[in-house]
């Protein structure tokens, strides 16, 4: 009797320290989402919120948990001052069990320091900075980096019999990572890098670069740039009549590329995680509902957020009924073979980096065609 009473007293004393769920079933589960809803990046935040609402409504309708899940959206403008303040605000709210966001790597890292210290799981849909997941075991991301994409493109080229490659990339931190990750994997597979060229951001004159790399007689050209530069590059390649096949980073997957480059874009190989025209039923369902509900086309950013929210909801279901910050973190780390619209996703439990299936595409007759 005495022991039981002491046990009860101990439980009562400890109760306020434990997470709210440990004592009684919560009436709802809260998730925080910090994102830029105003300011220069608001177009991305808008897409994230649209996708998050879609994922959340479908989840709550499904009745997989006896209590509703709610998302608290807080605007940060992806500004460092606001990102950190909002992170503190989310940490203060004991009901919030996990956080999504931010948009930019910089704001995600600054907020991430707060989450690391407080023990709050954080899943960013877009932070691709190499240091982001290294902050602490509480950080996750749902976007693949060049460290993941580069080796897969190298493998693809090997399968197609490419031995000699020339690489052209934009001169910034991302472009550097395109070249280093690809080159390492390609050389390890016995390939040869015959030329590497960086161009300064804003430069659209590629004829000198093209002439020089053509002289090195590569089997293929790999380009790491954004679609505006890519369109200029592909047009000029056609004008110079260089027939070397071109492989491109996933950043060139954008319908505008074909519009701008016209016939120059024919035959380009590229990989992507999200393809709006994919015939897969769950992707089609997502694209159609997004279009119907928000009157605009979803893109890679909207899809990244949609999957991030669903991955987090799955982790919460697995943690149920003991939905604490620590449990949600552990369950997030166990994410395996999640069938998302951006491909089948698995989180590495140690590095917390995502692995996704990359779809292979080719531009044929002005269309992005999925290769099987």
């Amino acid at each position, binding site marked *: 009797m005495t022991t039981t009473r002491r046990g009860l007293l101990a439980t009562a004393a400890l109760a306020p320290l434990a997470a709210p769920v440990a004592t009684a079933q919560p009436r709802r589960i809260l998730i925080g989402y910090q994102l830029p809803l*105003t300011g220069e990046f608001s177009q991305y935040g808008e897409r994230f919120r649209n996708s998050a609402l879609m994922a959340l409504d479908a989840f709550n309708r499904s009745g997989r948990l006896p209590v509703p899940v709610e998302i608290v959206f807080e*605007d940060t403008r992806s500004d*460092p001052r606001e990102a950190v303040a909002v992170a503190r605000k989310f940490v*203060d709210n004991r009901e919030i069990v996990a956080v999504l966001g931010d948009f930019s790597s*910089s704001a995600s890292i*600054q907020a991430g320091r707060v989450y690391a210290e407080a023990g709050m799981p954080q899943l960013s849909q877009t932070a691709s900075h190499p240091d982001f997941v290294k902050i602490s075991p509480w950080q996750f991301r749902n976007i693949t980096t060049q460290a993941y994409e580069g080796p897969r493109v190298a493998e693809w080229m090997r399968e197609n019999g490419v031995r000699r490659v020339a690489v052209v990339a934009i001169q910034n*931190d991302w472009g550097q990572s395109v070249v280093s990750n690809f080159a390492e994997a390609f050389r390890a597979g016995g390939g040869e890098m015959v030329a590497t060229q960086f161009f300064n951001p804003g430069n659209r004159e590629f004829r000198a670069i093209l002439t020089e790399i053509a002289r090195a007689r590569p089997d293929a050209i790999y380009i790491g740039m954004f679609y505006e530069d890519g369109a200029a590059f592909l047009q000029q390649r056609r004008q110079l009549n260089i027939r070397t096949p071109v492989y491109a980073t996933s950043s060139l997957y954008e319908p505008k590329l074909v519009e701008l480059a016209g016939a120059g874009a024919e035959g380009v190989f590229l990989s992507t995680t999200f393809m709006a025209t994919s015939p897969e039923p769950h992707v089609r369902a997502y694209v159609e509902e997004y279009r119907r509900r928000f009157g605009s086309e979803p893109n890679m950013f909207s899809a990244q957020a949609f999957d991030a929210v669903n991955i987090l909801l799955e982790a919460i279901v697995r943690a149920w009924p003991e939905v604490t910050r620590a449990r949600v973190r552990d369950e997030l780390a166990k994410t395996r073979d999640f069938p998302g619209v951006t491909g089948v996703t698995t989180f590495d439990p140690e590095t917390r980096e995502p692995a996704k299936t990359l779809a292979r595409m080719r531009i044929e007759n002005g269309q992005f065609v999925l290769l099987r």
Partner: protein
Amino acid sequence: MRGVLAPLAVFAVLFGVLPAGLSAAGSGYLFRLADVTLIFCILSLSMQLITGVAGLLTLGHAAFYGIGAYTAAILSTRLGFDAGLTIPASGLVSALFGVLIALPTMRLVSIYFAVATLGLGEMIYVTLLNWVSFTRGPLGIGDIPPLRPFGFDLSSPLGTYLLIAALAALALLVVHRVAHSYYGNTLRALREDDQCADAMGLPVVRLKIETFAIATFLAGIAGALWAHTTGYVNPADFRFAESILILAMVVVGGLGSIPGAIVGAALLILLPEALRAIGRVRILAVGLIMFLCILFLPKGLFGEVTALDLVRRQFGAAWRGSPTDRPLGWR
């Protein structure tokens, strides 16, 4: 009597009422807002000295804030210095750059000086961005340790707050002493008419350089505090828009007024947070409030000169109306 009451009131609020209230609320969010507000108070006070008191419109203040932040980041992550050393070092490095920049630019007058500081501020930003081997460029510098000066662990919310509050109080004292002295009066003489001041035998260039050194020293300290409390710095945090934000604090609070600088900083940091409830239009609302402030209070909340008057003077005599028949501000 008033001479004793005001500092006592500031002291009581800064070290009594505020920390007690914040601790009682137990909210990391409110502590963070207080920290950021005080850091920006240091920045706006330092800019007040240059722009409000000495009358030099500077558009590159964020660069000195950035130099301070990067000095603290590099010294603490690569050389293992603690905050007791990085904070003064950040002030000194920033002041050194301030003097180096002041030497050639102080001979410029009016709008030319403003444009020169704008250009130099952007140069410092571009250097932080592109000197990859030293600053890590767009990757930024992470893992900056929290505030632990001389082995005292002040990384708790209260400890961090108290250190920042102490430094802000110190900055307030320095700026107040400089501005309210014969020295400050000579600076005001520069603001009103630097040619006349020169003719009176005041060492105009030396005074301007000294003011710049004090102000950039304080901006550097603010940068170090930002770096240690945020843990990660990125060149994008010290862009032109930050300079404009600090300038807006000074103008809304009132040019030349020390309480104005503090109220301006508090207003522009806390208002966007306080207005979170109204959702997406909050930034618009902040803009509107600033606009109304300038419209109805052309001298700012506490100012001694109007912002429009400063701009007029910066743009030269062509814009200057006759002071007798032309009311200042709007109408």
